[in-house]
């Protein structure tokens, strides 16, 4: 059971919170819970949420965590959830230097959750909402049977990444779909528009070819309008929710999975920034304020554990932390802007310092307005890559090993951005919900040079079929050849398709 914070911990919390405010952090309230080892493994298995729906995957996490702990391989350093108030967990047995470190780190996250734009649309009462989801799923299990409901969860979770990751930030639905009529919309306009012209100028101002092309375009657009969905729908789960023949309880569960997927999405798109920001602040608060002399060694030990890079891997804590520090230094010394960019003199660049002192202000802006993609895109510099010895690696078939493939700045940046865009998930759309007018479903994977795992794709199609209950197709590419994979409920077929 969670214990009340001891007086000692309450004092520590007050102290750390005070420092955080002094530095200008602006955070959601934080509630700390003290848990022992077993409890913290349990809570961690549920991602920090006290109540989740019953599902074997949490058991798997728990097993891995507790085994990992039993063999002394891993310890959970901190866990904090995006909610108002934020919940965070402290391990009862930790010495107070660890508790301080965790608290300072947590306040960094709490500030980030509150201020980064990516989280602006997330449900801040998610702890309650998840408990609500859990209660509903549990009720369905009681009514329809554990196996049946759990099997349906398996299916939903194998589709959970097929959401529109950018949907919370833009308006995708068009007005006419919302019921407004736009008289100028191609669907309403049957004739190509002519520009007013004197008769003798007519064939110059409105040339015949242009009019014909326009007429053809309009016709195509009208055809498009008849499609279902009108344009490829990236929120595959939404499409299924709205159009698949599901029982009510199934629809509800699919909705639950979709809601949680959207809730977790911002954490995925700001992993580097969020961890970097929290690490930046724990090190700032600890080294400048909270640390006592006797705690220095332990602190250094644990901090280096958090930001260590293991055998060539990139640690998001470390990368984010160093980037924030780099930004602060660059804006403190005025190392940005056209003059800086234009300067090619190594000596000059090394000693460049305009004394601008805008670093702190800049990083606060950055933490509010960027996500991992824009963060890397804008602030990763050749100097940074060189200083931190970044490289790209690729799989070498011949040696069955990953090996370093490049140290060039462009390659590193491209590699990082490539992994981050759309979460490193493939872009998949619903292209047609009534294929051949037979109610068959066509998904379209926008091929960008990297093939899907085809063995998984086969099974995803089977799962999709369970939901759609009509034949399903996936347009994708294998080694550059466009293919269509189909599943009709009993067998798989794969055809090469002519057009993409």
């Amino acid at each position, binding site marked *: *059971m969670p214990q009340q914070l001891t007086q000692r911990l309450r004092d520590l919390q007050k102290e750390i919170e005070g420092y955080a405010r002094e530095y200008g952090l602006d955070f959601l309230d934080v*509630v700390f819970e003290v848990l022992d080892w077993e*409890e913290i493994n349990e*809570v961690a*298995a549920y991602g920090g949420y*006290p*109540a989740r729906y*019953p*599902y*074997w*995957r*949490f*058991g*798997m996490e*728990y*097993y*891995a965590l507790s*085994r*990992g702990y039993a*063999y002394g*391989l891993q310890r959970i350093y901190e866990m904090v959830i995006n909610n108002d108030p934020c919940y965070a967990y402290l391990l009862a047995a930790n010495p107070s230097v660890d508790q301080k470190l965790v608290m300072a780190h947590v306040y960094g996250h709490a500030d980030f959750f509150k201020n980064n734009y990516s989280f602006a649309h997330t449900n801040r009462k998610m*702890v*309650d909402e998840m*408990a609500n989801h859990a209660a509903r799923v549990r009720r369905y299990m009681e009514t329809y049977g554990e*196996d049946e409901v*759990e*099997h349906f969860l*398996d299916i939903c*979770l194998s589709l959970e990444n097929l959401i529109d990751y950018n949907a919370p930030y833009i308006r995708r639905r068009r007005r006419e779909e919302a019921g407004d009529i736009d008289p100028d919309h191609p669907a309403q306009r049957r004739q190509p528009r002519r520009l007013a012209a004197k008769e003798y100028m007519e064939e110059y101002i409105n040339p015949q070819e242009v009019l014909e092309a326009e007429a053809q375009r309009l016709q195509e657009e009208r055809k498009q309008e008849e499609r279902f969905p009108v344009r490829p729908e990236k929120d595959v789960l939404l499409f299924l929710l709205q159009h698949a023949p599901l029982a009510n309880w199934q629809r509800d569960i699919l909705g639950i999975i979709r809601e949680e997927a959207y809730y977790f999405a911002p954490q995925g798109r700001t*992993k580097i920034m969020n961890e970097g920001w929290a690490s930046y602040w724990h090190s700032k608060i600890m080294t400048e304020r909270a640390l006592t002399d006797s705690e220095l060694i332990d602190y250094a030990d644990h901090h280096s554990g958090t930001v260590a*890079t*293991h*055998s*060539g*891997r990139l*640690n*998001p804590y470390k*990368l984010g932390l160093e980037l924030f520090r780099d930004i602060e230094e660059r804006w403190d010394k005025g190392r940005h802007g056209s003059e800086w960019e234009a300067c090619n003199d190594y000596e000059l660049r090394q000693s460049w310092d305009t004394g601008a002192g805008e670093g702190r202000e800049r990083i606060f802006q950055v933490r509010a307005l960027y996500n991992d993609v824009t963060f890397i895109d804008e602030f990763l510099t050749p100097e940074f890559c060189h200083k931190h*010895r*970044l490289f790209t*690696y690729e*799989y070498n078939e011949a040696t069955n*090993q*990953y*090996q*370093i493939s*490049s140290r060039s700045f462009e390659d590193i940046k491209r*590699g990082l951005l490539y*992994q*981050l865009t759309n979460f490193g*998930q*493939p872009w*998949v759309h619903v292209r047609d919900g009534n294929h051949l007018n037979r109610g068959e479903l066509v998904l379209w994977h926008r091929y960008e040079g*990297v*093939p*899907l*795992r085809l*063995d998984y*794709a086969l099974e995803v199609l089977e799962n999709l079929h369970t939901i759609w209950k009509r034949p399903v197709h*996936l347009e994708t590419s294998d080694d550059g050849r466009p293919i269509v994979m189909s599943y009709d409920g009993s067998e798989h077929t794969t055809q090469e398709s002519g057009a993409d």
Partner: protein
Amino acid sequence: MTRESSSGFSSIKRIERDKKRFDAIIRGRIKKELRKHITRGELIGKRGREIVSIPIPQIELPQLKYGRKSVVGVGQGEGVEGTPIGVGEAEGGASGAGDQPAHHIREVEISIQELAELLGEELELPRIEPRGNRTLKSRRSRYKTIRSTGPETLRSFRRTYRQALKRQIASGTYDYRHPVVSPVREDMRYRSWKEEPEPVANAVIIYMMDVSGSMGHEQKEIVRIESFWIDTWIRAHYHGIANRYIVHDAAAQEVDRETFYTTREAGGTRISSAYELAAKIIAGEYDPQEWNIYCFHFSDGDNWGGGDDERCFELLLERLLPGVNLFGYGQVESRYGSGHFLEALRENVEDEKLAVSQIPDREAILDSIKDFLGKGK
């Protein structure tokens, strides 16, 4: 503040339910369709320095995602172009930055002894029961209690001191400025022994292995690994168990443990020869009234024709199965694809004491062991 979520904590034990569910999937009791997604490496990884690595099973649900090998990754550290950076085993740091190139299997390293204990959580010798009276219960003395009388050589100084201190404090004669503790007769405490009955189940395990020419190197290796693990596990959990080892090709012979695991023979296959020898050993030395008898036989199932199969069934039904607790038959994939013995066995011999298991590759070894010794069968 009253927290709405506090009620959630009372149900934390729900993790037990989820864990059980996961275990059930791993053991194949439910959701067979998920089993193929279980990732685990080889059971025996490194055997150097008595260390093995056992993977923690993980299940990954299929999703539309990129084949990982084709993704370009970014890392940090020294090295030039072409420097290998290790295979898989991505740990440290969570996902997101795409810092995990390989489909990773989480591994832990533990000693063979520990592994046997781990297996023990999932295995048992089925139907073991106390049999025989010759060595049924031995009594063993252990010094584990305290008495107030006894010889001076067994006096427990600590207990005596503690008792005296207690008495002095209670009676108010203890003075912390002058902390002298002097025990009197009643304070004396002596170590003493207790006799404990120690149940000894009489059990014998007979291992039989086909070492004929049709068993390729890989097949023999699989059989060796599997019987090695069964052997290791049983030795770790049951004491005083007798082991007998039989190898056979066209003729069977009894060998010692060392030879059993190292021998390489070649020749035809007459399974009945091994069964005959086993039956002879049992009849001569292990009376089923007094012994728990377990037999394990491994082969590629590529038995010679000429009625030898029938001879085997006859031996099993009449001489072996009536007396044994379990007869396990494990069949590895034959190099010539002609392993028919398992099927024939299934068709012709029906007995709950007969457990058969197919072992297509090394990955299947653990499952096969569970086929034989899994709990709850």
